C-alpha cells in the first residue's frame, strides 16, 4: 500500500531523513517508532504532500506522492502532530466544513458526519466550540476529520500525544478497531503503544531506518537475549559453574556485598535447578535467582543507541 524507497530530506545542511525505505502492506497497522527528532514527522509530511523530498520515491496505493499529489491526498486521512484545529468553530461545523473541502456533499455528508462522530465518540460534544474542548476530545476531532473521506490509508502523527491514561487507552482501542478496515501508519515514541496496537514496527533514528520487523519477531529477539541472573553473598568463583550443560555464556559482576552472575542459555527452565544444585554443592550463599528478559524498551534503547543491530525482514 505504502512504498517508500531511498527517501532523503535535507533542511539546508541538516539531514532530517537519510535514505529511508520501508513498506506498509495493506490492512496492517504499522508503528513508526523513534526518539524525538528522528525524522518521523518529516517522513509523514512527505507522504502527505506537505513537504517534498530532496530525493527518493514514495508511492501510496500505486500513486506517486510527488507527481500525483492531489490524487494521493484523496486517499489519505492525515492527523498532524498536536492536532491543529480552528478553535472558534463548533465540532459539527468544523467537520461539515472539512467534508465539504474533501468533496463530500448533501445527504452523503450528513450520513458521513453521523458515522465519524459515532465512531470517535464525539456524540456528546457535537455542538461544543472546539476551543472549549479538552486535548483528548480535540485529538478525537482530528481523528474524525481524518476518517471523513473514508480513506484507505490513515497517517497519524503521534495520535496519543498529551492525553491522559484513560484517553490513551480509548484512542488505542479505536485505532485497533479502525485497523480492521484501513491501513494505518502511526508514529510514536511510546513503546507500549507499539506493543498494544501495531502489527509491525519500523524503528527510525537520526533519519535512518534502524530496524523494520513484525512485533513477533521483535519479541522473539528479545527472548533470545534473555538470561538467568543469580545473586550470591560473599566471594564466588565463576569457574565453578562453567561446566554446566547448555550454558552459552557466563558474565560475572561485582555488587556491594557479593557477586552477580548472568547465565545465558537457550533453555532457562532446566538451567535454574542446575545452578541451584551447584550452588548448594559448593556451599555458596544463593540470595536470588531470577530470569531477566530485556523489555521492548531495553531493545529500543539498545537499537537506537547502536549497541545491537537487528536483522531486517
Amino acid at each position, binding site marked *: 500500500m505504502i512504498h517508500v524507497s531511498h527517501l532523503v530530506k535535507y*533542511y539546508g545542511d541538516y539531514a532530517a531523513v537519510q535514505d529511508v525505505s520501508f513498506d506498509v502492506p495493506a490492512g496492517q497497522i504499522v508503528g513508526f517508532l523513534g526518539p524525538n527528532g528522528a525524522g518521523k514527522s518529516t517522513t509523514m*509530511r512527505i507522504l*502527505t*504532500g*506537505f*513537504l*517534498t523530498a530532496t530525493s527518493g520515491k514514495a508511492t501510496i496505493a500505486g500513486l506517486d506522492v510527488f507527481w500525483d499529489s*492531489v*490524487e494521493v*491526498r*484523496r486517499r*489519505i486521512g*492525515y492527523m*498532524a502532530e*498536536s492536532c*491543529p*484545529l*480552528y*478553535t*472558534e*468553530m463548533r465540532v459539527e461545523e468544523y467537520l461539515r*466544513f*472539512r467534508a*465539504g*473541502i*474533501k*468533496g463530500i*456533499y448533501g445527504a452523503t455528508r450528513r450520513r458521513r458526519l453521523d458515522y465519524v462522530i459515532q465512531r470517535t465518540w464525539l456524540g456528546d460534544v457535537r455542538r461544543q466550540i472546539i476551543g472549549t474542548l479538552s486535548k483528548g476530545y480535540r485529538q478525537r476531532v482530528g481523528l474524525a*476529520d481524518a476518517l471523513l473521506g473514508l480513506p484507505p490509508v490513515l497517517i497519524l502523527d503521534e495520535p496519543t500525544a498529551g492525553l491522559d491514561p484513560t484517553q490513551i487507552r480509548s484512542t488505542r482501542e479505536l485505532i485497533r478497531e479502525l485497523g480492521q478496515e484501513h491501513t494505518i501508519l502511526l508514529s510514536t515514541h511510546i513503546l507500549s503503544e507499539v506493543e498494544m496496537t501495531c502489527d509491525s514496527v519500523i524503528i527510525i533514528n537520526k533519519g535512518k531506518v534502524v530496524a523494520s520487523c513484525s512485533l513477533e519477531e521483535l519479541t522473539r529477539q528479545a527472548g533470545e537475549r534473555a538470561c538467568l541472573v543469580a545473586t550470591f553473598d560473599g566471594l564466588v568463583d565463576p569457574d565453578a559453574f562453567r561446566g554446566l550443560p547448555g550454558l552459552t555464556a557466563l558474565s560475572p559482576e561485582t555488587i556491594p556485598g557479593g557477586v552477580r552472575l548472568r547465565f545465558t542459555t537457550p533453555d532457562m527452565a532446566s538451567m535454574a535447578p542446575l545452578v541451584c544444585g551447584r550452588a548448594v554443592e559448593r556451599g555458596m550463599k544463593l540470595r536470588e535467582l531470577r530470569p531477566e528478559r530485556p523489555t521492548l524498551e531495553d531493545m529500543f534503547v539498545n537499537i537506537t543507541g547502536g549497541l545491537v543491530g537487528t536483522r531486517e525482514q
Partner: protein
Amino acid sequence: MRPTLSLIRREFTAYFVSPIGYVVFAVFLTVTGYLFYLSLELLTARGPRGISFPMQLMVNDVFWLVFLFIPPLLTMRLFAEERATGTLETLLTTPLRDWQIVASKFIACLLFYVCLWIPTLLYLPVLLDLDWATGLVGVDPWPVLTTYLGVFLAGAMFLALGLLISSLVKTPMVAALVSLFVSLVFILAGFWRPDMDTSGAAYRVLYFFTVPLHFERNFSRGLLDTRQLVLYISLALFCLFLTVRSLESRRWR
C-alpha cells in the same frame, strides 16, 4: 468548485466570529457616515456654499486615512494565523489545489469588503437626488456609480496585496504592519497635494499609482480612466499569482 465554495463560506463566516470584523465595520461606517453628514450639509447649504461633486467629499483624505488600515486588518489573519496555529498543514494536505485555496480566501475577503460598503447604499437616494414619486434621479448618477466601481477595484487591489504579504510572514501582527507600509506607498502622495507642483515630472509619476489622486480627479467626477482600471486589476491579479506561488513554495522548503 464545491470544495472552493465550502472554504469561501468558512472564511467569510470567520470574519463574523472574530471581533476584528465588527471593529472594522464600526469604524468604517462611522467615518463614511460622518463624511456623508458633511456632504449633506454642503448640499443643503443656503447661499454660495455648495459642492459640485459630493463624492469628492465622501471619498477624501479622511476617508483614505481610515481606509489605509482596513485591508491590512482584513487580510492579516488569512494566511499568517494559519501558519502560526499550524492549521495551514491541515489545509495543504487536503485534495484542494493551491490556487483554489488562494482564490477562496481572496473571494471571502472581497465579499466581506463588499458587505462593508452595502450600508452606504442608504445614502444613495440623497446623493442622487432620487425623486420618490417618479423614481428618477435629479443629478448625474455616473459619479456615484464610478466611485463605487473605483472603490471596489481599488479595494480588490489592496486586499490582494494584503493577502500576498500575509502569506509571506509568520504572524498576523507583522502581516498587518507590513501591509500598512506597502499600502502607504499607494496612498501617501495623496496627502501632499497642497505642496505638490502638479505640472512637474514627479507629480506625473506619482499620479500613476497614488490612489486618492485617481479618485479626486477621475472616479468621483464620473470619469473612468482605463489606466487606473488596468492598474488595479493587473496588480490584484499579479499579487494573487504571487500568493499562489508563495503557497506552492512552502511545500519545497
